[in-house]
């Protein structure tokens, strides 16, 4: 409003300024600078004037008009008086837009009725002694503040048991003209220091009347623990007011405190809380609290006013039965409380109601999750029936979760429908389940008692029992279990009308006479809900009746054909209808009747001498009540010549027999059977089949697998029975249990004839399907024998399926060979055991002769051809393999001592006769002499270097043989000896051979005694003692000596001395006089072969002989 006045003044001033400014546009430009300065001064003047005006107005008029309302009906406007006004100043307030109403007053505020929307001009004229001043204000509702009156708390109370504060106040709504929303702000402060613990807003509505409001707040800390303060303020949110809405002032504070007595207390006491929640405990104490425990866990202390402390527990776990202990410890005492953390009751599950007797309803349920609370805190169940308004209550300690709870509700007269609500509640909450039942459909009767059976006749009895309950208005459905001994039980349902006296009676018919029954009963209602439990069993034997049928009868003529043997079967219990005491048998023909009466029961056959007339045999069974109808059979047997024996195999338990329909058969077919191995009469059992049947399965407990049975099918005509078929069969075939007994009938060099015998029927155990015959080379006690039958590749198998064949000839065998024969029989049931035999075929003499003659003939031919060839080429062979060796004696260049060659007593001058020189070089390994480049023959010694150290460590002998060339001349033999080497050139060793050959004994006696020629080759293969001695002797010799150990030489040539030393393993050929023998050029034969001995024929001898020749 103040700014509005100022704006008006400035606008007026600007108008004046513009009026003055307008003529200045007319003057010349030269004068413009002077005019401009003038205008500027004038503007300053005007501005100063205006400022003065404003200041004077400020100083003198009322200002700071402010309007508030607390009820939207009256505005309280106040302003500030101009400065310098005294107490006696009067004000005239005029509101322009409201029919020009003016108020005259002495104070600086005025209460005016609330103005409607829009701007209003407020003129306040202050009248005082030295003048007056006027201020104009524009007033709008938007400039008015709505500030409610300060609320007042009417009441603040507390429920210490629940730690809840209750606040009550009045909204004073009657002063407000309109419905308005009110926002209350409530502040809760705790402790003497007034710590804010809760600030909440609470919304209400003003409805034009004074209304009391309530607010409650549950403290997380027991209210006893500390003082609590509460204050309140409000703000009105009126839709009809567009001005500012401001909070009221806070109400005067109210507090709640607990007056502690002298004793220390712990709070809360024995509180029941939900598992998982938070809780605060405090100990209000006058003495210092040292520690706090929950269970066995220490908790930090929160200090409250004075010495009081608190602890806060978060997410508390379920308590034990006796609760969770919270203990505060002071210097000399302990204080505590117990908290019970549990769950509210679960919704009762599987609530169901039924009745046993229509007098009392039993409702049962499962409590669900355990609450964890017991004793006074346990769940209390209330079963409320809404139609009658009655209820029953149940309280007990918590049972295990899986245990069912039960409540009994007494039935009300004439009420069938019950609407039950089961309510469960405990300190933490409640839950409920409902069920609507028609109780007549939920009857679970008690167990029938006093169950009794009484005879009516042989096929009917009466049953009586007691069933507690009032079932007069409904029908009962009872089930009777009828069990015959060793048979399937039968159940019969009977519907009976319910009675009040609980006694029931029912007749049970269609029973069999003379039968032991086991009976029991149970009941339900027609609208079935549950069967009662079974009553006790009762055994009852019905009375006897006459046998319902005559015995099943058959007849056989005795083997001599004079007597007729009549057989009958004992009546089954359901036909005997009592204990059969005796039988009457009668045979009647047109001429006579014979009877046998009172045949006692265990006997089931009778023999009557009859002629061959046709008789009708009649058999009657009798019990204590009467006789059965007669059972009749004709004695006549109609012959049938066209019979063949057939074979059949059964199906494990029985045998299926089929036949063609024969209209001539007017009465039953009869199949009789017997064990085929039993003696006559053949009758094990029989069965009658209706005449319209064409097949039957014969089953009997007496049938055994592997047993052959004979079956006879008889057709029945008026005049008698005719044998239609004869069948042998097995219910099940098995493998034979014995092997066929077989023998060898004949044996030749290439074949064996085997014969076997039949297997007895009892041991065959099935129809013989064939034999398997295995044969193969084999000898007893060899592994091959054992695998003979198991598919050895050398084994041959013959499958003999011709049952009439009893022999088998096995051909194409080898002579003088052992054969393993196995025979086994088989049926469709499997292979039987095997029987084996070893047979040696005879020798094949022609073949042997041929086998001998052919190699001999071949050898002879080869020998002859070879001999011829050798004879014709003997010169060439001699030149090639056996050239002439020059005689050293004929060589004038050399002169040998007489001892070297016998027959020469003095050394002769070596004559240089023309001869064919041979060059034999013998070198020792120690020698540094150069080798002779020539054909080398390496001795066996040289090929076994490892033997050198043992046998001849000092010698490495190389024998060169080069007949045509002499490369070097022999130096002085003495020098050779000194050098440890010898080189000798032989001339015609062959000529020296004969004179040098000595008996072995002589060699041993004087091996190197002579100073003449000695063979230079020493073969150390046989390192015997004698050899070692000989070596020692050799070391002592001077001059030339043979280099070979004579003892090791084996002279195999028939014309040379032969050394046979048993200790010698290696036999050498050659001359004892010279190693330059031809035998070294020919590889030695196998010394182990007997043919290599001199006694037999040999290829070497062949040449030797030839050479000698």
């Amino acid at each position, binding site marked *: 409003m103040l700014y509005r006045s100022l704006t008006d003044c400035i606008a007026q001033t600007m108008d004046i300024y513009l009026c003055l400014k307008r003529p200045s546009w007319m003057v010349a430009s030269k004068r413009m600078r002077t005019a401009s300065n003038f205008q500027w001064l004038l503007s300053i003047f005007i501005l100063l004037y205006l400022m003065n005006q404003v200041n004077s107005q400020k100083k003198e008029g009322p200002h700071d008009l402010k309007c508030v309302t607390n009820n939207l009906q009256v505005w309280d406007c106040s302003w500030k008086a101009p400065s310098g006004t005294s107490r006696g100043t009067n004000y005239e307030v005029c509101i322009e837009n409201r029919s020009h109403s003016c108020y005259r007053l002495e104070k600086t505020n005025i209460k005016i009725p609330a103005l409607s929307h829009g701007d209003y001009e407020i003129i306040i004229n202050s009248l005082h002694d030295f003048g007056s001043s006027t201020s104009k204000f524009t007033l709008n509702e938007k400039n008015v503040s709505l500030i409610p009156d300060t609320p007042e708390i009417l009441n603040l109370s507390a429920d210490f048991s629940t730690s809840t504060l209750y606040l009550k106040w009045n909204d004073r709504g009657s002063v407000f003209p309109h419905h308005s929303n009110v926002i209350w702000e409530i502040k809760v402060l705790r402790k003497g220091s007034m710590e804010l613990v809760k600030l909440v807003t609470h919304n209400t509505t003003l409805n034009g009347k004074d209304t009391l409001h309530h607010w409650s707040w549950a403290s997380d800390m027991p209210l006893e623990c500390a003082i609590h303060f509460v204050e309140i303020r409000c703000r009105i949110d009126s839709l009809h007011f567009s001005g500012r809405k401001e909070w009221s002032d806070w109400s005067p504070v109210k507090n709640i405190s607990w007056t502690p007595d002298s004793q220390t207390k*712990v709070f809360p*006491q*024995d509180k029941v809380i939900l598992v998982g929640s938070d809780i605060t405990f405090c100990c209000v104490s006058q003495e210092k609290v040292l520690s706090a*425990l929950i*269970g*066995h866990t220490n908790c930090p202390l929160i200090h409250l006013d004075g010495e009081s402390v608190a602890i806060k527990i978060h997410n508390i776990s379920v*308590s*034990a*039965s*006796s*609760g*969770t*202990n*919270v*203990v505060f410890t002071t210097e*000399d*005492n*302990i204080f*505590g*409380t*117990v908290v019970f953390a549990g769950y509210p009751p679960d919704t009762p599950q599987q609530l169901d109601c039924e009745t046993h007797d229509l007098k009392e309803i039993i409702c049962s349920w499962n409590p669900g999750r355990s609450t964890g609370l*017991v*004793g*006074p805190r346990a769940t209390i169940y209330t079963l409320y029936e809404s139609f009658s308004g009655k209820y029953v209550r149940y309280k007990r*300690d918590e049972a295990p979760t899986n245990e069912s709870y039960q409540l009994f509700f007494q039935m009300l007269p004439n009420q069938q429908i019950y609407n039950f609500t089961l309510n469960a509640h405990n300190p933490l909450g409640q839950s409920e389940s409902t069920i609507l039942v028609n109780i007549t459909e939920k009857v679970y009767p008690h167990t029938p008692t006093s169950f009794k059976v009484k005879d009516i006749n042989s096929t009917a009895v009466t049953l009586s029992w007691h069933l507690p309950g009032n079932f007069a208005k409904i029908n009962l459905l009872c089930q009777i279990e009828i069990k015959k001994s060793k048979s399937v039980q039968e159940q019969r349902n009977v519907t009976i009308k319910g009675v009040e006296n609980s006694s029931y009676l029912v007749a049970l018919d269609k029973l069999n006479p003379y039968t032991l029954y086991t009976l029991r009963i149970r009941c339900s209602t027609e609208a079935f809900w549950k069967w009662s439990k079974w009553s006790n069993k009762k055994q009852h034997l019905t009375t006897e009746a006459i046998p319902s049928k005559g015995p099943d009868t058959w007849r056989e003529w005795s083997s001599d054909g004079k007597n007729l043997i009549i057989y009958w079967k004992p009546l089954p219990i359901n036909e005997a209808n009592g204990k059969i005491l005796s039988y009457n048998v009668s045979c009647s023909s047109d001429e006579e009747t014979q009877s046998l009466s009172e045949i006692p029961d265990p006997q089931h056959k009778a023999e009557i001498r009859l002629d061959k007339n046709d008789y009708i045999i009649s058999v009657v069974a009798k019990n204590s009540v009467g006789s059965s109808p007669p059972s009749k059979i004709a004695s006549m047997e109609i012959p049938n010549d066209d019979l063949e024996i057939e074979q059949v195999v059964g199906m494990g338990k029985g045998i299926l027999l089929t036949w063609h329909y024969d209209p001539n058969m007017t009465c039953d077919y009869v199949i009789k059977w017997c064990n085929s191995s039993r003696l006559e009469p053949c009758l094990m059992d029989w069965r009658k089949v209706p005449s319209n049947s064409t097949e039957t399965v014969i089953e009997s407990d007496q049938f055994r697998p592997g047993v052959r049975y004979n079956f006879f099918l008889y057709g029945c005509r008026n005049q008698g029975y005719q044998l239609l078929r004869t069948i042998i069969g097995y219910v099940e075939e098995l493998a034979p249990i014995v092997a066929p007994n077989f023998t060898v009938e004949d044996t030749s060099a290439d074949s064996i004839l085997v014969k076997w015998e039949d297997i007895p029927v009892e041991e065959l155990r099935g129809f013989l399907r064939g034999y398997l015959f295995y044969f193969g080379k084999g000898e007893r006690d060899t592994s091959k024998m054992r695998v003979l039958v198991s598919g050895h590749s050398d084994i041959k198998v013959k499958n003999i399926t011709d049952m009439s064949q009893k022999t088998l000839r096995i051909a194409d065998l080898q002579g003088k060979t052992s054969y393993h024969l196995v025979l086994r029989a088989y049926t469709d049931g499997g292979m039987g055991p095997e029987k084996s035999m070893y047979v040696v075929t005879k020798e094949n003499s022609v073949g042997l002769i041929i086998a001998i003659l052919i190699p001999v003939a071949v050898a002879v031919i080869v020998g002859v051809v070879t001999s011829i060839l050798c004879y014709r080429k003997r010169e060439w062979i001699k030149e090639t393999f056996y050239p002439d060796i020059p005689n050293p004696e004929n060589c004038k260049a050399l002169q040998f001592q007489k001892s070297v060659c016998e027959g020469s007593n003095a050394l002769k001058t070596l004559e240089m006769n023309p001869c064919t020189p041979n060059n034999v070089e013998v070198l020792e390994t120690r020698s540094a002499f150069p080798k002779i480049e020539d054909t080398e023959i390496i001795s066996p010694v040289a090929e076994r270097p490892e033997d050198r150290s043992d046998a001849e460590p000092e010698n490495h002998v190389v024998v060169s043989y080069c007949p045509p060339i002499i490369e070097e001349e022999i130096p002085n033999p003495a020098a050779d000896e000194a050098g440890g080497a010898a080189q000798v050139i032989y001339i015609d060793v062959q000529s020296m051979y004969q004179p040098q050959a000595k008996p072995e004994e002589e060699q041993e006696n004087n091996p190197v005694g002579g100073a003449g020629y000695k063979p230079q080759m020493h073969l150390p293969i046989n390192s015997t003692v004698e050899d070692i001695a000989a070596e020692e002797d050799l070391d002592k010799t001077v001059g030339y000596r043979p280099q070979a150990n004579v003892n090791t030489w084996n002279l195999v040539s028939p014309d040379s001395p032969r050394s046979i030393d048993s200790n010698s393993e290696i036999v050498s050929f050659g001359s004892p006089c010279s190693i330059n023998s031809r035998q070294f050029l020919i590889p030695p034969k196998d010394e182990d072969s007997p043919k290599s001995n001199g006694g037999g024929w040999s290829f070497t001898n062949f040449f030797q002989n030839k050479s000698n020749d």
Partner: protein
Amino acid sequence: MSRREGSLAPQADSSVSLLPHLEAKIRQTHSLAHLLTKYAEQLLQEYVQLQGDPFGLPGFSPPRLPVAGLSAPAPSHAGLPVHERLRLDAAALAALPPLLDAVRRRQAELNPRAPRLLRRLEDAARQARALGAAVEALLAALGAANRGPRAEPPAAAAAATSASAASGVFPAKVLGLRVCGLYREWLSRTEGDLGQLLPGGPA
């Protein structure tokens, strides 16, 4: 009387031989006290186990607050003549049953699924009553029976009733612990006092 009391004094036990039937009675009562002492120990252990922590923890020892109607054995008890001690024993045993019953009732609410504890408490009340009666009978046989009216049992009953009606569960647990402890102490004390009557007992 004083002479007869003097004959019961421990100092005179060795010189006076008791009648055989009286000796048998003392021995029997002593055996009963011995047996019940063991039972009381078991009762106390089971009670502690079922109250939850910190009951049973090693450092947990509530103050031995007085129990209305039942005094704790005084340290000067040993200095009293044996018949006087037995009178005090008998009085305490007579005061214990209502307290034990009150404890049992409270425990039936707290531990309804602890039938063994409840049975032990029930047995303890009955056995305390029986032992008290036996001690009184023994005192009568010895000519030292109480001559004045017995005021303690009714007082104990009233105290027990008020104790059982105590609002807090925790104080009730502590009270039960205290009662069980006193029960054990008085039985032990009775066993010791009866042992002094036995020939060859401690002087």
